[in-house]
């Protein structure tokens, strides 16, 4: 059943219809019951009345009948004139013959003989024969005919009922109009607010709450939803604005290093024979490249945070090592800006179960910020200590400080407190956000304190220490010259420039290098070339890197070869796949020559150890997954004095790695 249009659209009309319908029904039932009862009652009353009248008449006329006194009987009958409803009456002798009669109107008549006792109703008339007895002695019969009047009565009743019904409906309508306002007014208010939202996208309006009933709850819920929507919309706008700013910054930051690189290349061409100029140009290129790598690493981290794929790789590591890695990475910048750095670290021997790379990244970020946001010649302090079972690291500066209202906001993604400052490197505005996330992943917290603009700032990182009393793992000094050992190296990469440049580097280091540009060719070449080490691109044509690795492992000539995946993909799932395919290590492009040098050094020392020490000592086996993350080696020092194992790089920690199976052994290095 479909309701009329008006009823479907308006609560008010519905309520009115409801009230009217229920009232009408109640009144109808009531009226029917009343009329029915009244008709019955009227009939009984009328009959009783006529009977009584007949009784009175009979008794009064008994003597007249008994003594045959017609005149007296006539007089008795004529008293009926007072009764307008009685149309005719008659008295009969005991033998049934007519004795006397009374006719109200001329056209009325009476039966000529007495009928049997009892009443009958015909049309609108009731007639009655009633015997008369005097002290048990029958003296005759009385006859009465009266207007029943039921029809008039019924009409009168129905008329009254109709009037009452109309009155009651009108009253109900008025009352419901009045009462409805209590119900509909709050609904209308909510509706009005909702309409404002739908039609004008205006989330600032609020539904007035005038009752404490369900509608009041509805209004509250609606208001809190509006508030929530507004908050979210504001947050979305802010995030959107931040993203726009971030994109602008990103473009700017990515473009920035290109000019110096281009200039440096030009310089190298122009001043080919000037070793000092080319050296400076190289250094410049390296610095700018490092800057770009860091930017891209940050971007990758941002994407990991937003997709929830940022995971820690905890290991036992000495606090000093982590801190010094960070310091070394930021040293050049601090020097360049003429700051002084005071460092207080706990004595050697404090080991933590943390992700060293990530923690170093946090420290580096804070130190970087301190250096960046202090005017030249500033004072920076880096204090790390174990307090009450937790690591507390403080980075203090006397720089530009932070306005109180910005204290929380600076931890937001893409937030940059002061974009008007002409800082040499602005960064992407993700550092603090990333740092906070990393610290939280460690189960810790990061807080900032600043006395205001120009008053410096202090960042405090707290991480549960989980100190261990266990002995530090066995350490081995990696031979400094290990990287110079000769190897047969297979390079499989469809990017010719990359492959050729890498081959040149490797050959320059005294290795024998073979290049293939697709997977099938690489596999074919491997059989006779028998490489010690193979760098395999994952996205190879014809045979992809994973399948190629499996095939090489199956091939007798390369079963024991060291297989390194080189790819643009750095997701943990990719690493896992690489591990399953049989890769020993994993490098994310861009591959830095330092890392390759380090790896080669470790592998050769491992090989040497294997050949000299025989089977590995079981107690020294390290169970860490050897595949490393070179994408996050954001703390590589920019200095051009390459240590054999750059301490901050992820590949460095990866070098503390193990090969599975019979080839497994332990290689550690001392980063100091």
């Amino acid at each position, binding site marked *: 059943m479909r309701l009329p249009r008006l009823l479907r659209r308006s609560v008010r009309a519905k309520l009115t219809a409801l009230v009217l319908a229920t009232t009408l029904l109640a009144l109808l039932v009531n009226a029917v019951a009343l009329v029915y009862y009244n008709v019955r009652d009227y009939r009984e009353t009328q009959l009783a009345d006529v009977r009584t009248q007949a009784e009175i008449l009979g008794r009064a006329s*008994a*003597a007249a009948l008994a003594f045959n006194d017609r005149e*007296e009987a006539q007089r008795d009958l004529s008293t009926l004139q007072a009764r307008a409803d009685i149309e005719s009456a008659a008295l009969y002798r005991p*033998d049934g013959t007519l004795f006397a009669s009374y006719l109200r109107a001329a056209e009325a008549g009476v039966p000529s003989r007495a009928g049997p006792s009892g009443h009958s109703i015909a049309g609108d008339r009731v007639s009655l024969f009633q015997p008369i007895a*005097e*002290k048990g002695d029958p003296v005759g019969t009385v006859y009465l005919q009266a207007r029943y009047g039921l029809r008039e009565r019924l009409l009168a009743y129905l008329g009254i009922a109709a009037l009452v019904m109309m009155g009651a409906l009108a009253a109900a309508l008025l009352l419901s109009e009045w009462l409805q306002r209590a119900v509909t007014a709050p609904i209308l208010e909510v509706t009005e607010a909702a309409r404002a939202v739908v039609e004008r996208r205006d989330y600032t309006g609020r539904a007035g709450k005038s009752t404490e009933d369900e509608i009041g709850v509805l209004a509250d819920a609606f208001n809190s939803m509006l508030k929530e929507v507004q908050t979210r919309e504001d947050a979305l706008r802010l995030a959107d604005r931040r993203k726009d700013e971030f994109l602008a910054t990103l473009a700017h930051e990515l473009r920035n290093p290109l000019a110096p690189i281009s200039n440096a290349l030009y310089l190298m061409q122009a001043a080919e024979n000037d070793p000092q100029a080319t050296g400076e140009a190289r250094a410049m290129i390296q610095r700018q490249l490092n800057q770009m790598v860091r930017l891209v690493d940050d971007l990758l981290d941002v994407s990991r945070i937003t997709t929830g794929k940022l995971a820690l790789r905890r290991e036992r590591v000495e606090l000093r090592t982590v801190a010094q890695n960070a310091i070394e990475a930021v040293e050049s910048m601090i020097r360049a800006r003429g700051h002084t750095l005071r460092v207080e670290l706990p004595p050697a021997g404090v080991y933590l179960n943390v992700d060293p790379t990530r923690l170093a990244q946090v420290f580096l970020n804070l130190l970087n910020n301190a250096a960046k946001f202090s005017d030249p010649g500033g004072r920076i302090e880096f204090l790390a200590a174990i307090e009450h079972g937790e690591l507390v690291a403080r980075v203090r500066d006397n720089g530009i400080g932070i306005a109180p209202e910005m204290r929380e906001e600076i931890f937001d993604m893409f937030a940059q407190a002061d974009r008007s400052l002409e800082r040499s490197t602005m960064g992407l505005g993700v550092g603090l956000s990333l740092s906070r996330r990393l610290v939280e992943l460690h189960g810790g917290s990061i807080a900032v304190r600043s006395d205001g603009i120009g008053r410096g700032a202090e960042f405090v990182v707290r991480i549960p220490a989980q100190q261990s009393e266990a002995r530090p793992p066995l350490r081995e000094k990696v031979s400094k010259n290990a990287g110079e050992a000769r190897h047969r190296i297979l390079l499989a990469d469809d990017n010719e420039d990359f492959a050729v440049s890498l081959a040149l580097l490797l050959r320059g280091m005294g290795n024998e290098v073979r290049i293939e540009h697709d997977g099938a060719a690489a596999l074919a070449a491997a059989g006779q070339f028998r490489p010690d080490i193979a760098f395999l691109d994952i996205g190879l044509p014809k045979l992809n890197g994973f399948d190629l690795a499996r095939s090489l492992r199956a091939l007798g000539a390369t079963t024991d070869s060291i297989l390194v995946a080189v790819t643009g993909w750095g997701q943990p799932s990719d690493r896992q796949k690489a591990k399953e395919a049989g890769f020993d290590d994993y490098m994310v492009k861009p591959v830095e020559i330092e890392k390759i040098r380090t790896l080669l050094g470790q592998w050769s020392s491992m090989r040497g150890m294997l050949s000299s020490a025989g089977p590995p000592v079981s107690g020294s086996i390290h169970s860490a997954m050897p595949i490393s993350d070179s994408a996050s080696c954001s703390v590589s020092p920019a200095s051009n004095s390459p240590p054999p194992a750059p301490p901050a790089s992820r590949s460095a920690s990866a070098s503390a790695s193990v090969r599975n199976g019979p080839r497994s052994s332990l290689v550690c290095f001392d980063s100091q």
Partner: protein
Amino acid sequence: MRAAFAFILLAFSCVALAQPSEQEVKAAFLFKFPSFVEWPQAALRAGPIVIGVAGAEDVATQLQQIAAGRTVQGRPVEVRRLREGEPVAGLHMLFLGRSQSARLAEVERQAPGQPLLIVCEWNGALENGAVVNFVRDEGRVRFEVALDAAERRGLRISSRMLAVAQNVQGKL
């Protein structure tokens, strides 16, 4: 059965002889008077209502016919013909024919306060102690009542009977 027979007879006679005789009417009246009269409790113990008739043989006969097998106020009606000098003790009602005016005086003297409904049929009877007296009015038999006489004899006469009386003496 006999009552029904008598009733039918009476009804038949009424219809057949459209003009009933004076004696018949008087007998019928006499039969109906007890319905409208109340005797003192003491006078009406168990037993029939006794109606004495003197000097009116036709009426006595008619009355006997009417009363045969019928009751008034639940009592049978006994008709007793009174001879000369017979006392009125035990009677509830006494009808004296035209010739009995001396007897009226005698009854008045003998039992002046006895609850006895004395009915006569001559002019002036009420002045001599009768309670009810038949009169002729335009050829119809009617009756007059002496309330003081009734009161003296401890009788109460229904107002409805008084209503059809031609004349009522000695208003209460």
